[in-house]
């Protein structure tokens, strides 16, 4: 799930968009339930990070297979009202309650790790098409040792 140039104005719109897509793509059963979990986690501690990235995530029975979805919004916006953090790159991660497919989990953890790398981030933010983004994210797959 890769979405570029999406027009959303705030965190709720972004999350709603992503969970709807996740359900459409058969990754979760119920987007309302999943959204609840994700929001619960956000309320605990915001997932907005440096580098204009946010990594909302949820662990729930309604998640069928572990997944990571990526969205680049048209404009950056404030993730939280009370923080200066602007967000433009959002990774939504879903994990089943009972830990699912290990390979998927490994892949997601590798992507998370890569986000700490300046070089990788630069490449990702410069991707102009879904294909380019897909190729970059997929290259991580090759590094995942099964």
């Amino acid at each position, binding site marked *: 799930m890769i979405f570029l140039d999406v027009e959303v104005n705030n965190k709720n719109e972004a999350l709603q968009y992503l969970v709807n897509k996740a359900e459409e793509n058969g990754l979760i059963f119920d987007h309302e339930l999943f959204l609840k979990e994700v929001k619960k*986690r956000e309320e*605990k501690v915001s*997932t907005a*990070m440096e580098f204009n990235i946010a990594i909302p*995530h949820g662990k729930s029975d309604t998640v069928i297979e572990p997944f990571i979805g990526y969205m680049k919004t048209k404009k950056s916006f404030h993730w939280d009202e009370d923080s200066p953090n602007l967000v433009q790159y959002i990774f939504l991660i879903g*994990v089943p309650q009972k830990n699912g497919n290990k390979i998927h*989990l490994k892949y997601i*953890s590798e992507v998370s790790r890569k*986000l700490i790398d300046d070089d990788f981030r630069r490449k990702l933010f410069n991707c102009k098409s879904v294909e380019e983004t897909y190729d970059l994210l997929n290259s991580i797959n090759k590094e995942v040792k099964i």
Partner: protein
Amino acid sequence: MIIMKLVAVTACTTGIAHTYMAQEALEKECKKRGYEIKVETQGGLGIENELTEEEIAEADAVILAVSIGIEGDERFDEKRDEGKVLTMDPSVLLKDVSSVIDQAEKI
């Protein structure tokens, strides 16, 4: 230059994102400073890089970047009594790894 020996555990609610990012961030920052660090992760992939009693005993400080209860928490009781344990939510660590390590230096 003092070379610090640190140990850490990272664990977040979903067991994926923050858990491994925090590990990566800690390892990177310590590499920059020339410090030694071993980071145990408790996440979706189970417990990886488990810390031994010895490693914990030899450490100058312990960083627990966790948002859930961790297994084997008792291992750190002694360090806790010595005031050498820093605990925080992994996302807080990610926002500023540098100052967490600074804090560890002051212990």
